[in-house]
């Protein structure tokens, strides 16, 4: 009985880790960025939803406007040696008008008592463009840097985003209302509607990603960039566009994860980091390359976590993060020695 409960708990958390792991694999394979701040999107998403539940205008909207304004300044700076009017207008629309519109919509809608699905969608709408701006501000100027430099930059972005989370949301934890309150009993198992949402969303996103990569031209361009950046450029793929797309998808997945996890646990400004790192463990087991292995590994991480929190609760984190080291050794040894590349 306890075992089934632990398994259910592990699978639910694992499904969230799977979403994060998939986003990390997606980002790494397209942009070579090891995106430590993925968890921050989750925290932002969950906290935004919780504030919307309270009928408040979440601080993330002002943050979004700030991000957009900074990205616009970056664009202006790179346009300082002359540009055409279309590029300028596109930048204006993407970086200033879009966040402005989202800000306006949120101000109008927040005080109304929206159905929870609408609040969830609004949350995703607020968080997703942040991916675009984070890429523009932090990573695009570093597009040709080594993986290590990008990783250190990611740590910087993580610090900044976590700190901003603290400034905008405060140190108090928040818990969102579930998307649906119902509970179903299947035999001895009690399943909440929220966990069904989580399973459904995870499967939908996995299928969606599969369709995107297999069936659309943009998806194929992303795959081409992942395999060979220079080669993709030579055949006309705009690698900056693929970078933006990957970050947008990652931010959207992060927001969805936040919406899903917000109602089942209390989220603080720094919770995202730990959740994200667990997605990381899964992504690393998948070699930062394989979507299916990552998804399966994420479920495994969820299970290890739920069982170790039952049997050795105080060592839960030690076990989960210690687990990653043998995996890294195995990956390093099987990947051969390619230090000079």
């Amino acid at each position, binding site marked *: 009985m306890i075992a089934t409960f632990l398994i259910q708990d592990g699978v639910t958390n694992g499904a969230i880790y799977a979403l994060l792991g998939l986003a990390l694999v997606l980002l790494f394979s397209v942009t070579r960025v090891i995106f430590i701040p993925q968890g921050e999107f989750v925290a932002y998403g969950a906290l935004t939803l919780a504030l919307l539940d309270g009928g408040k205008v979440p601080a993330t909207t002002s943050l979004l406007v700030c991000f957009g304004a900074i990205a616009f300044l970056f664009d202006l700076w790179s346009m300082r040696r002359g540009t055409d009017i279309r590029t300028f207008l596109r930048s204006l629309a993407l970086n200033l008008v879009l966040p402005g519109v989202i800000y306006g919509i949120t101000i109008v809608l927040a005080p109304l008592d929206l159905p929870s699905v609408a609040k969830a969608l609004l949350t995703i709408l607020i968080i997703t463009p942040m991916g675009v701006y984070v890429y523009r501000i932090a990573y695009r100027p570093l597009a040709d*840097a080594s993986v*290590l430099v990008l990783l250190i930059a990611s740590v910087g972005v993580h*610090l900044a985003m976590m700190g901003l989370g*603290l400034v905008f949301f405060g140190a108090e934890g928040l818990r969102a209302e579930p998307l649906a309150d119902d509970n179903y009993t299947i035999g001895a198992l009690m399943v909440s509607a929220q966990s069904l949402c989580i399973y459904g969303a995870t499967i939908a996103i996995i299928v969606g990603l599969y369709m995107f990569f297999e069936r659309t031209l943009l998806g194929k361009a992303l795959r081409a960039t992942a395999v060979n950046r220079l080669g993709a450029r030579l055949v006309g793929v705009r690698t900056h566009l693929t970078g933006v797309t990957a970050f947008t998808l990652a931010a959207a997945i992060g927001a969805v994860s936040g919406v899903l996890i917000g109602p089942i646990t209390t989220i603080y400004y720094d919770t995202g980091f730990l959740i994200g790192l667990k997605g990381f463990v899964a992504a690393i087991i998948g070699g930062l390359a394989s979507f299916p292995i990552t998804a399966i590994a994420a479920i495994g991480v969820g299970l290890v976590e739920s069982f170790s929190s039952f049997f050795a609760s105080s060592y839960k984190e030690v076990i989960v993060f*210690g687990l990653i080291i043998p995996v890294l050794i195995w990956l390093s040894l099987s990947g051969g020695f390619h230090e000079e590349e």
Partner: protein
Amino acid sequence: MKIERLLPGLAGIVFLAIIPLLPVPPFWLTILNNIGLASLVTIGLVLLTGVGGLTSFGQAAFCGFGAYTTAVLSTNYGLSPWLTLPLSLIVGAATALPLGLITVRLSGHFLPLGTIAWGLALYYLFGKIDLLGRYDGISGIPPIEFAGYRFMSDGSIYYLIWFFVIAVAIGAKNLLDSRIGRGIRALRGGGQAAEAFGVNIVRAKLTVFVFAGVVAALSGWLYAHMQRSVNPTPFGLSMGIEYLLMAVVGGSGHVWGAIFGASIVLIMKDVLQRFLPDLIGTTANLEMVVFGILLVVILQLARDGLWPFVLKLLPKRSARSLPTSDDRLAKRTLAPAGSSLIKVEKARKAFGGLVAVNDVSFEVRAGQVVGLIGPNGAGKSTTFNLITGLASLTSGSVFYEGQPMTGDSPREVAKHGIARTFQHAKILPDMSVLENVALGAHLRGSAGVFRSFLRLERRQEATLLAEAAFQLERVGLGAYRDRPAGDLALGQIRILEIARALSADPAVLLLDEPAAGLRHGEKQELANLLKKLREEGVSVLLVEHDMGFVMGLVDHLVVLDFGTLIAEGKPADVRKHPAVVAAYLGGVA
């Protein structure tokens, strides 16, 4: 050493020494103490990350090991801090060694991720262990005492901290400027070349890893006795990230940059914590945001950190004169002419279905110059790599003086007296020409980490450098001795590689296309040099495309085509061999 070279350092020390005597606000001393403690960790990180290329986010954990060791021993068992100092350092080393053994085997970006993983795991561990007081930590740690004097105040422990900082910084500089240090500096981008001259790469990585761990433990020991209490917070991942930030800000390749970076970050932190809350009206630790942005901005705008800008402002120091040495390095006794040196027997290398080297057999005898020729893709360089241990044989064997050396690593091959150059030159562009050549003499020195750290190996080092300078003169690059090797033209770099190989005192020289990129006159000089080496009894095996160069030089010629040996013999005979003519000019139907 000239006095003017010491002057900036002495001025700095005097300046540091008088600060506490001046009427400065007391919090200045607190900040300076914190800077000193952080500098210790950052110096280790500079060696590890900036020089060695191993990015670690977990250094704070080693501070924890040092701090907790002394905290437990001095409170529970009443041990004197002076007794716990060596113990703290030993615990630092003892934990760094196994962690390092695991970590340095991680490749590429898995390495920093690994340090994040154990950095986090150790932090949680510190907070869970009863002996370490769980998250509350340990308090009531005694202050350091010396001859009845207790280092209680900020102003007194200041001297202790900065004594260690300066000692460690000088030691780290010494270490980098030594035989061991050249191996460490080769870790980033020059691993293969260093290994081909006998540097044990894994050991060099472990050396810096343990060094960084030990100095972090030293910082932890000082911290525990300054703070008089410890808890897990300063040993977590976020401090580990902050240390890395200091190293990046300072300029991750510079030892003094570590102190500079630590100063900037900690002074900024203090200013932000003091003034930002008033300005913005929140008490949140905004310095996190600023640090994150700072890290990204430095990487975007000044990837080598800020210390190089400071160096530009400082007056340029005169180039160091080469130390003179009366000792000469012992020379290897060479095998009698005509005896078998390298014997390749049915060597085979297959990459999947492609057979790059197909059961090739040939021999290099002492005192011979043997040419290995063949069209592009014939398997010449692969054969080279099979002999030098860079690639593993699929089947067959390689003998050296009759002893099998199949499966030997490049390092073991180097020990036999086989020195090589690379087809794609592998030099260390930031190191001086002289130091690049001295790397070749690695196996002829013996000084270890401790002697290098304490600068006790100067006599031997001078001999090594003198040998390198001699070889540079010999190949005609003497004028470029102190220039960074990256400044040289391609042809000169090839010659530099030959000088490096010569300074290993080789019995056999393996040259991979040495004449490529050389002008006619330079080729002639190279040919003369190789002839002279032959007279001295050194054997040479060379891969070359320039037929005029090869034909006039070699005693014996081996021709490969599509991985198969198609002819061998005297140059004049081989030239007429129908299979060779067919391979080079196309077959006659």
